[in-house]
């Protein structure tokens, strides 16, 4: 492989990883509050279809992107209401959200089928940075939404580890009873962060329908929401590891296709398994070294908090 092919492969891997990255960042925030939302796939589809529709109607991709985030967030509130207020099972509610989102997005998108995107996010090279040899083209000759995803990594990291709100969030996720005792409003924190999770998932969906393959096709996320859920575990709830993981997960298929054009046969079936194999590997690894509490899942993940049952 010569340099040009390597650069184009890695650059494609960044694009392929971006929708997963958005969704995974959202899911990290959501799970940090102790709420497991398996509805990522559904929220992404809602984001993809609403974003596309808004972009078509307004003729402005930014409006589309904002509407997608809002739609993803609002949609996630169904899950928040079911699991935080009504305290039903987070797993069941999340799965229902995915199934519902798939159906609802098809319904909303009926009139959008076969319409090419009138506007889309195109590639913009960042001056100076894009001139850095090798890395410049890979990281800084992309569309705007990719750049926003870089900023989001930093923002989420600062939010989780350097702010008061992030501390409260983690307290709620680790031990809601204790957080409640010190006066943190547990359900408010959870509502907010389930919503933020939905906003990110919606952005990931919009990346697909407005930048990656700009058009609306039913079920166009094709399982990326599930990869995002598995990526969160792979990344051990750390936004920076999620960045690395999403590019690896996204880049695998691309590597497989490029290898085929060079006459190397890699089974695409095997490629599809790798994200999940990696995740299982990480799970085995962290269970094997129990002592380190920094990398484990939020303590109260998946458990609805009920004050009376304290």
């Amino acid at each position, binding site marked *: 492989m010569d340099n040009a092919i390597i650069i184009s492969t890695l650059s494609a891997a960044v694009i392929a990883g971006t929708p997963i990255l958005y969704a995974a960042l959202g899911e990290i925030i959501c799970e940090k509050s102790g709420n497991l939302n398996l509805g990522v796939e559904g929220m992404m589809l809602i984001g993809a279809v609403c974003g596309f529709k808004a972009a078509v109607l307004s003729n402005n991709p930014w409006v589309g992107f904002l509407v997608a985030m809002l739609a993803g967030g609002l949609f996630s509130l*169904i899950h928040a209401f079911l699991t935080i207020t009504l305290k039903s099972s987070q797993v069941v509610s999340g799965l229902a959200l995915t199934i519902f989102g798939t159906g609802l997005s*098809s319904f909303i998108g009926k009139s959008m089928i076969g319409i090419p995107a009138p506007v889309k996010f195109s590639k913009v090279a960042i001056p100076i940075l894009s001139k850095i040899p090798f890395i410049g083209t890979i990281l800084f000759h992309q569309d705007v939404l990719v750049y926003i995803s870089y900023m989001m990594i930093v923002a989420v990291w600062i939010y989780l580890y350097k702010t008061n709100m992030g501390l409260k969030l983690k307290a709620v996720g680790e031990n809601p009873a204790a957080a409640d005792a010190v006066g943190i409003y547990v359900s408010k924190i959870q509502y907010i962060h389930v919503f933020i999770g939905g906003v990110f998932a919606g952005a990931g969906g919009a990346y697909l329908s407005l930048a990656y393959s700009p058009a609306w096709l039913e079920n166009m996320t094709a399982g990326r929401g599930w990869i995002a859920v598995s990526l969160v575990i792979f990344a051990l709830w750390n936004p920076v590891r999620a960045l690395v993981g999403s590019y690896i997960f996204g880049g695998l298929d691309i590597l497989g296709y490029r290898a085929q054009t060079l006459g190397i046969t890699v089974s695409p079936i095997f490629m599809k398994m790798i994200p999940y194999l990696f995740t299982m590997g990480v799970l085995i690894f962290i269970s094997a070294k129990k002592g380190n509490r920094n990398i484990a899942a939020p303590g109260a993940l998946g458990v609805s908090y009920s004050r009376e049952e304290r």
Partner: protein
Amino acid sequence: MRKKLLGVMSLLMVLVMIFTGCSQKSTADESKTEDEKYKVAFIYVGPVGDAGWSYSHDAGKEYLLKEMPDVEATYIESVPEGSDSERVLTELAEKGNQIIFATSFGYMDSVMNVAKKYPDVTFIHCSGYKTDKNVATYFGRMYQPRYLSGVVAAKKTASNVIGYVAAYPIPEVIRGINAFTLGAKSVNPDAVVKVVWTNTWYDPAKEKEAAKSLLDAGADVITQHQDTPGPQQAAQEQNAFSIGYNTDMSQFAPEAYLTAPVWNWGPYYVDTVKAVRAGTWKSAQYWGGLKDGVVALAPMTDLVDEETKALVAKEEKKIIDTDWDVFTGIIKDQEGNVKVQEGQQLTDEELLSMDWFVEGVEGKIAE
């Protein structure tokens, strides 16, 4: 008490969400009584909105409804192949449908099982090979328009590398690649067809990536055996040319799209429903070609020059009017071994089980 109530409420909400998520629609007017209409049903493997395979069948259904207004058609989309399809087929048979069209290969065994239990219902299965008294199969010789599209591609390419984004290494796809390559070679012996397998039928982003990898490897015309327009978009973005599949995909890549081999199921659906209704229908294995109109080459855009258009018209006439077909010898495989002797033709059986590439294809059939 309050807690119990909340629990029941949340369960109800979840159930409502699950049920609205499943999609089953009837296109008929609800106010009419059931007896007035002749009921037929379709099951699709993908969503109707895929702009590809299921969309093409749905267009056939729409044609049927237009031609025969007294028919009521139900469709169920996104039915997974396997045991789920058996449940759906049973449900449709129970609901009094006279004819059920099962439009994907993987429904085959489910169709056979359900057909035994409902001998009065006629089952028409697309692309399979098992039949029964009340089960027929149908498919189209898509390789014929694929051959024609190969001619178009080979005339357009400057780099002599044509990229082919392929779904799964099954005979149907392999046959298409071979026919395309034979068409390309017939007008441009230097052309090679590079193949990348995606192992998806339906993932626009991945299929676009596969096309991009072919473009990076030197291809300047892209074609596809996939159900989404992803590869078309890739060609447009990199100023290459593209040939679609299933339906006219020009709106997704107006500056790249040349033509597409397309399905046209409508006339077959009308004939079948008429025959079953009149009682003249017999189980058969229907494999229609360009001659029957089940498959066609979509109108070529202005990006195709007049000389090529005339050439394609000539080849099309040859296939329709004479005994000559795409797989007429001499044909060699990738290693240069003669697979079809001069003047001989592959039989339908050989075509339906094809597992080798012709000379000129660059790529491997994964085990």
